[in-house]
C-alpha cells in the first residue's frame, strides 16, 4: 500500500548507481507539482506519479483514462482497467464521461504521452510506420493520446531516445504537438498548452517560444553530442544545458524497494 507521506524533495544524497529508466522516472516526477490533477498512463508515468506523491506532491490527484480517480493501488497496475485501480479509489467514471467531464471539461492539469515517432514540434505518431494504407509496421493506434494532446493544460512525453523515434518527419500524425509551431496549434482550434517537456532515455528536452524542441539537460552517461547524434534533426541546445540532477538515494530506494519491487516496469540494474 502506498502511503502519502511527503518526504523532502531534493534532500538526501545523490545516488551514484541508477538506471536510465530510473532517471527518467525521477525527472518526470520532478515535473509534477503538488495538488495537480494528473492523467496517468501505465508504465513509467504511473511510477513517476507514485514517486511524486511520496517525494514532494502528497496531494497529487491521479485520474486514469479508465475513469478511476484518486486510486491507491495496492500493487502496480498492469493496465488502465486494472482492478487494483478500481478498488480503493475515490470515484469511478464511465469511459467517455471521463474524457468529457475531466479532459474536455478542463479538469486535467498534466497528461503523459509516449509515441513511436516524435518530431521537433512534439507531434507524435503511434499509429503506423510507413503509409497508413500500406503499413510497414502497424502500431496500436492513438488510444486517448490525441485527446490528451489536444486538451490538457500541459503534457509530458516519455520515450526512448534514438534516431528511429526522434525523426525529421513522422509517418502519421496521431497526436498534435505544436504542429508547425505554437501559432498553428492555436489556429487549429487546439486547446491546452501542448507538450511541456520530453523526458527521454538521454535527457530532458523542452520547447522554445516557436514551439521547437531544445535540449535542456542530458542524463548521466549521456552528453550533448550523444543526444544530438540520436536525434534525426539538427537539435537546438540550451545555452544553459547541464547534466540532469541525478536521483537521490532515497528516490532510487523508493523505486526499487517499494514502488516497483518486482521490476515490472524498471529493469533491475545489471550486476
Amino acid at each position, binding site marked *: 500500500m502506498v502511503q502519502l507521506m511527503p518526504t523532502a524533495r531534493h534532500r538526501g544524497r545523490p545516488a551514484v548507481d541508477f538506471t536510465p529508466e530510473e532517471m527518467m522516472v525521477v525527472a518526470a516526477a520532478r515535473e509534477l507539482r503538488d495538488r495537480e490533477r494528473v492523467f496517468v498512463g*501505465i*508504465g513509467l508515468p504511473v511510477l513517476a506519479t507514485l514517486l511524486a506523491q511520496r517525494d514532494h506532491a502528497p496531494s497529487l490527484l491521479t485520474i486514469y*483514462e*479508465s*475513469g*478511476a480517480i484518486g486510486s491507491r493501488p495496492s500493487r502496480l497496475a*498492469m*493496465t*488502465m*482497467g*486494472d*482492478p487494483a*485501480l*478500481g*478498488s*480503493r479509489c475515490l470515484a*469511478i467514471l*464511465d*469511459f*467517455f464521461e471521463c*474524457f*468529457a467531464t475531466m*479532459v*474536455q471539461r478542463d479538469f486535467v492539469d498534466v497528461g503523459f504521452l509516449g509515441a513511436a515517432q516524435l518530431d521537433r514540434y512534439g*507531434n507524435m505518431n503511434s*499509429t503506423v510506420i510507413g503509409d*497508413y494504407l500500406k*503499413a*510497414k*509496421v*502497424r*502500431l*496500436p*493506434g*492513438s*488510444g*486517448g*493520446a*490525441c*485527446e490528451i*494532446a*489536444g*486538451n490538457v493544460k500541459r503534457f509530458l512525453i516519455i520515450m526512448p531516445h534514438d534516431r528511429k523515434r526522434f525523426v525529421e518527419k513522422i509517418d*502519421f*500524425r*496521431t*497526436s*498534435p504537438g505544436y*504542429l508547425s509551431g505554437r501559432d498553428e*496549434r492555436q489556429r*487549429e*482550434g*487546439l*486547446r491546452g498548452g501542448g507538450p511541456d517537456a520530453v523526458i527521454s532515455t538521454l535527457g530532458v528536452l523542452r520547447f522554445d517560444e516557436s514551439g521547437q524542441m531544445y535540449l535542456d539537460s542530458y542524463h548521466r552517461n549521456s552528453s550533448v553530442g550523444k543526444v544530438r547524434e540520436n536525434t534525426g534533426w539538427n537539435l537546438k541546445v540550451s545555452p544553459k544545458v547541464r547534466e540532469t540532477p541525478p536521483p537521490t538515494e532515497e528516490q532510487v530506494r523508493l523505486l526499487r524497494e517499494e514502488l516497483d519491487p518486482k521490476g515490472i516496469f524498471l529493469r533491475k540494474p545489471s550486476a
Partner: protein
Amino acid sequence: MSHEKFMSTREAVKRFVHDGDSIFVGGFGNLYPFSLAHEVIRQKKNLTLVKHSPEILGDQMIGSGCIRKLVFSWLGNPSIGSAHAFRRAVEHGVPKRIELEEYTHASVTGMLKAGAMGIPFLPAKTLFGSDYPGHHPQIKFMDCPYTGERLCLLPAITPDVALIHVQRADAEGNSHAWGILSDIKDGAFASKRVVVSAEEIVDTEVIRRDPNRTLVPGFMVAAVVHDPWGAHPSSAQGFYDRDNEYYLEYDRETRSRKDFEKFADEWIYGVENRKEYVSKLGRKKLEALKPKSYKSRPVDYGWYS
C-alpha cells in the same frame, strides 16, 4: 416473470449474433466478455467489431477470421506489445483483409454515447491536428453557433448487438456491475440488442435492493447467460484478477499464423463452453487469481409504507 431470456452461451450467440452484424463488446481491462467472444469465434460469424480498445479479445476474433471491419482506437497487448493477429491482418491481409475505421478513444466512445443518447452526433473537442479525419470523412467539423469555436462532430454508432459481461444479473437481464465500467453502459444503450453474461445469476430482489448499481436494465436485454470466469483472461472486479501470464503467453505463442491457430485450437475451438475452459485452466490458476475480500458497506434505501 418468465425466464425466457435465460439460455446457454451457444444459444444466445446463435440467436442474437448474425453474420453481417456490427457488434460491440464492453469493458476495459475489467469485464471483457471473453466467453461470449469465444463462442462467436466457434460459430464462425462474420462481423464488424466496434470497440475503442479490443485488445487481445479483438486480436483473437481477427485471427480467427471473424472480423471484416474494425471500428477502434487502440489495439495492442496492454503493457506487453503488439497484437500479432491484428498486425498480420493489416500488414499482410492474413487470414483476411480487414477494413479499418480508426479514431481515438474519446471519438469511438463518444459515437456510442451519441447512439445511447438517441442523437445523430455529439460535438466534441478532439481530433484537431490529427491525421485521422483525413482518412475517415465521417468526421465533420463545424463552427459553434454560440461561441464560434471549432468543434469536431462524432456521428452516432448504433451497433446491432452488444456483448457484455457483468458481475451479477437476474434472469431478466437487470445487471449489476462495479469497478471500472468503461463503455459497457453506453455501448449497451446504443445497441439494438444486448446479450449479458454474468458471474452470478441472482434473484431480482438483490437487484431491487440496490437499483443505483444497475448498469443495464433488463428490458433492453435479449439474452442472459451464466458464465463464471466469463471475463478471463481479463479481470472481474472482486471476482478475479487479470491473468497476466495468459497475456504474456499469448504474446509469445501467437507470433505466426500457425502458432495462433494452435493457440486457438487449444483455448477456443478445443473447449465446448466456458465450463470446460475453466476446468482446463485448473484449480491452481483460478485460486491464484482470486483477490482477498474488500467489501462495500451496505446502504439503506429505506422501506416507505
